[in-house]
């Protein structure tokens, strides 16, 4: 699941995703879940992330209104959000350029002592 859009990072938000290994899973579509998640996303961040991974598909540039009813749309979001998984790669802070590695699907965001 692309998380960078949900959690932000300082002013360094959103994080850029650079993936070296991406996996696309098949996940059961739960429209209620997806429509609840959407308000929490920053749409442009999601777009950017999806694009960075080459999985933008046809996500529209802007969030459509009344998306709860639009199943097609929800399915697209579902795909980008839940089915595309970054296994290896990194997240990069747009401001500092600091890269956080992602290994086996788990990003490592520990800061070293100097960075505190």
């Amino acid at each position: 699941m692309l998380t960078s859009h949900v959690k932000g990072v300082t002013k360094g938000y959103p994080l850029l995703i650079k993936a070296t290994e991406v996996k696309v899973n098949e996940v059961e579509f739960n429209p209620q879940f997806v429509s609840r998640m959407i308000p929490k996303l920053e749409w442009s961040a999601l777009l950017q992330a999806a694009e960075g991974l080459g999985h933008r598909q046809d996500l529209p540039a802007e969030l459509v209104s009344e998306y709860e009813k639009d199943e097609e749309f929800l399915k697209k979001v579902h795909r980008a959000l839940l089915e595309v998984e970054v296994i290896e790669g990194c997240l990069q802070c747009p401001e500092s350029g600091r890269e956080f590695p992602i290994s086996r699907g788990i990003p490592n965001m520990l800061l070293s002592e100097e960075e505190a």
Partner: protein
Amino acid sequence: MSEPGREAGCVRFFCTAGSGMEPFLTEELRRKLEAEDVTQLSGKVLFSSSVRIHSVVELKAAERLFLLLKHESPLQLSSLSSSAKAAAELKSRLLGDRKQWSSAALTWSRLQGELSQGRGAAANTSSTPRGRRKEEGRGSEEQMEEEKYCDGKSGKSGKREGEQREEERESRGLRGGEEQEEAQTLEKKRKREMSCGVEELILEKRIKRKNHEEADEKERQDEDDEEERRMISSRGSVQSGSRKEKDRAEDGSVENMEHVKPAGEEDQKPAPLSRIRPDITSSVTFRISCKCTGSVSRLFSSQEVSRVMGVGLSRMMNWKVDLKNPQLEVNVYLSDDLCLLGIPLSRLPLAHRSYMKTTGLRSTVAWAMTSLAQIQPGSCVVDPMCGVGTILIEAAQEHRAAWFLGVDIDDRQLQKANENIEFAELRTRIQLLKASSMALPLPSGSVDALICDLPFGRKFGTKTNMAANLPVIVAEMERVLRVGGALVLLLSPQLSFLLKKLLSPKDPTPPPGSEVCPCPPLSSTEQQTVSTQPGVKPSPPQERDTQTGPQPPPPPSSLKHHTTLRVSLGAIDGLIHKYVKVDV
């Protein structure tokens, strides 16, 4: 007797629960099972419910589930003069009469049947309104039998009343309308009825099949069934007092017969259950487990009670004692406050979750914590020290439309958490992140609920002391939580004390994280404003600024205390604290 409640379909159970978990269990019972007559004792909760057994075994706050056999006032044995008299009194009080036991055994069998029936099938709700357990039970009984013989497919499907059950396996004891009527009758009868007609047919078939089976018990059962069959065929007459056949008396199964399809498959491998309904009264093997405390234990040891009861019961019911692998286990609890007998409904306790691979915190306590966190669909829930992910998994099982994030600093823990998540198939809803709980890479106010089991020990992370870092950790938690969000923490009593001091209103100091740089320092370039104690782990800015003195500035917390509960974690106790973030 299994106090099947006045209304049919209602079975009385009790659950054991860890100390401190009883209120959670009571609440869960009311909410999920619409349980009635809930009685909360210390360590146990008794209740009646008529929902499907599958829902009952989904209870999360309970340790073990039992079918209630007897619940009586405590035994008063000390006043009796001799131990022989006491033994006699014990026997008479505890054993009661045959009917109670037969009917309990029947109910138990039925429930077992339902359970195994539904094991593969999705839980579909009974199409028939009743969904009474009994009703289903009846069906399951039949099924049970079938299962015994074969996979219980087909054949039994016809439920009476034309309620078509889907294939046994699938239907899971859905029995329709007919059941209702049955419901009125005695449990046993009900069972019988259903099975009657169908059973007959099925049995016959099965019997043939059986012969192919190697299972001894099957054969045994078959024989019994056969007998029963014959009995049943007379339909309409109650037979063999000790057998359930009596129940067969009811007719009505005739219709079922029509529906009965030949149990086509022979794949009847020996039924998963060795429970047999029909002959349960005749060839049950059992064992008694007893726990005695209080004055009774002064007179008798647990073993003695077990023995006395075992002998008495086997004589009365003609059941056999099997200490190693009994079909039926009877648990007896005798104390100064109560006298409770029950039959466990499963070998493994409910607290043992099928979806957990490696547990950390007890699943029941983890679930209790999530029940406090006010999780709604669409919530974003974080566990900043998730360990192997127990809390997140329990929460994700319960709340299907919420999203979870687990953070931990230790690779090995994250690895196990990853495995757990895979095992529970919750990959898409639980995300893991390696980070420090003292510097959460999350924007302020972005989390709806935060649940955490803080390490009790002195070791936190690799070098630092938990107690010393508590202020920072709590501050981070507070920061990322949104207003109105809930914070649920499990702490040792010592840490709880510290927490209280930390969060009780004191001299105002700049609230942690609410104004300055909302996010934890992520990169050095960003944090010039933040203070620094480079030697220490990253910490929220202003706090550190002011915290140069020896005493940590007590933040005027925006966390409002809600509840504190004590729970047992086995060898030690823990305290669950719930706070809600308010607007400051």
